[in-house]
């Protein structure tokens, strides 16, 4: 926080030597300048020069197939923006994966087969759908355990009240 005013000051003195202005205006202009510089400076984005794949952002003509594709794409995890599904992600690789999913569904492949194909390559990591693997057991057991704990608490409460 402290570094910013001094940077402002440095910019302001540079400008005031050429054209003296009222303090407020000077600061306002520098803010605009900094904002402009930030807007122009493009981050080092690793994006290609090629357009998105054909089916990346296009719906399949058959609504039933598009529905299947959508359901599967919501369930597949983007390998670039980990935490988004490929349906949500703007990453190019996610677009290419959507293209792959739509193409295969249009060709008559079952969503479960496409998911299995991807799991073979990236592991169950790629799918948001919880599996039955041992690592996921706590996920399945937690609700049951919490229910049991809750039932015990309620039972104790009731017995205490009866006694009271």
């Amino acid at each position, binding site marked *: 926080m402290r570094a910013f005013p001094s940077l402002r000051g440095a910019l302001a003195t540079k400008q005031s030597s050429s054209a003296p202005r009222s303090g407020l205006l000077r600061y306002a202009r520098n803010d605009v300048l900094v904002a402009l510089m930030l807007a122009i400076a493009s981050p080092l984005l690793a994006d*290609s020069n090629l357009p998105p794949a054909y089916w990346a952002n296009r719906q399949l003509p058959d609504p039933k197939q598009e529905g299947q594709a959508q359901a599967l794409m919501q369930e597949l995890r983007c390998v670039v923006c980990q935490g988004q599904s490929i349906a949500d992600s703007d990453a190019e690789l996610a677009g290419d994966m959507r293209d792959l999913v739509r193409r295969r569904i249009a060709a008559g492949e079952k969503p479960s087969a496409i998911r299995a194909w991807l799991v073979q390559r990236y592991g169950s990591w790629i799918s948001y759908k919880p599996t039955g693997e041992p690592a996921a057991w706590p996920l399945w057991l937690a609700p049951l355990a919490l229910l049991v704990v809750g039932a015990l608490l309620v039972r104790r409460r009731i017995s205490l009240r009866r006694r009271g």
Partner: protein
Amino acid sequence: MNRLVRFVPLVLLLVVIAGLVWRLATPVDTNVTSKLEGKPVPAFDLGPAIAAKPALSSRDLATGRPRIVNIFASWCVPCISEVKVLEQLKARGAAIDGIAVRDRPEDVAQFLARYGDPYERIGSDEQSRVQIALGSSGVPESFIVDRRGIIRYQHVGAIEPADVPMILDKLEQAR
């Protein structure tokens, strides 16, 4: 019994703190790795990335000697420094093929002319299909394929100069 129960929240707090400290000290590895190590290279047949160089198909990878398949792109910044390291590897006897992801011939040609060209063959993967088929999640990435076309090792990210002995060792093991 009741006296001990009083300490339960404290113990839980300590467990949570221990967990946080542990995760801060050893962060989670967010690299997505391919599950194809130990399996044959999936069948593919890519067109040439530039006219002057032969194209790449999965058949070109089972040639009786281990090979490095480097997934790169002209628009990928770390690939620029990696190409120098790949040239070192080539000078020390490694056979290297490339897969150019989402690239145009003129861009690939310019990249090779400017930064170096260690590749025997380069296939053009315009829609990342072979990249996805290999279980790769970005550029650069490299796969070491043994003489029978089985994937033996995946390197996520650029191969750094310090990785050269390790890569040569992996190639030797894949023989």
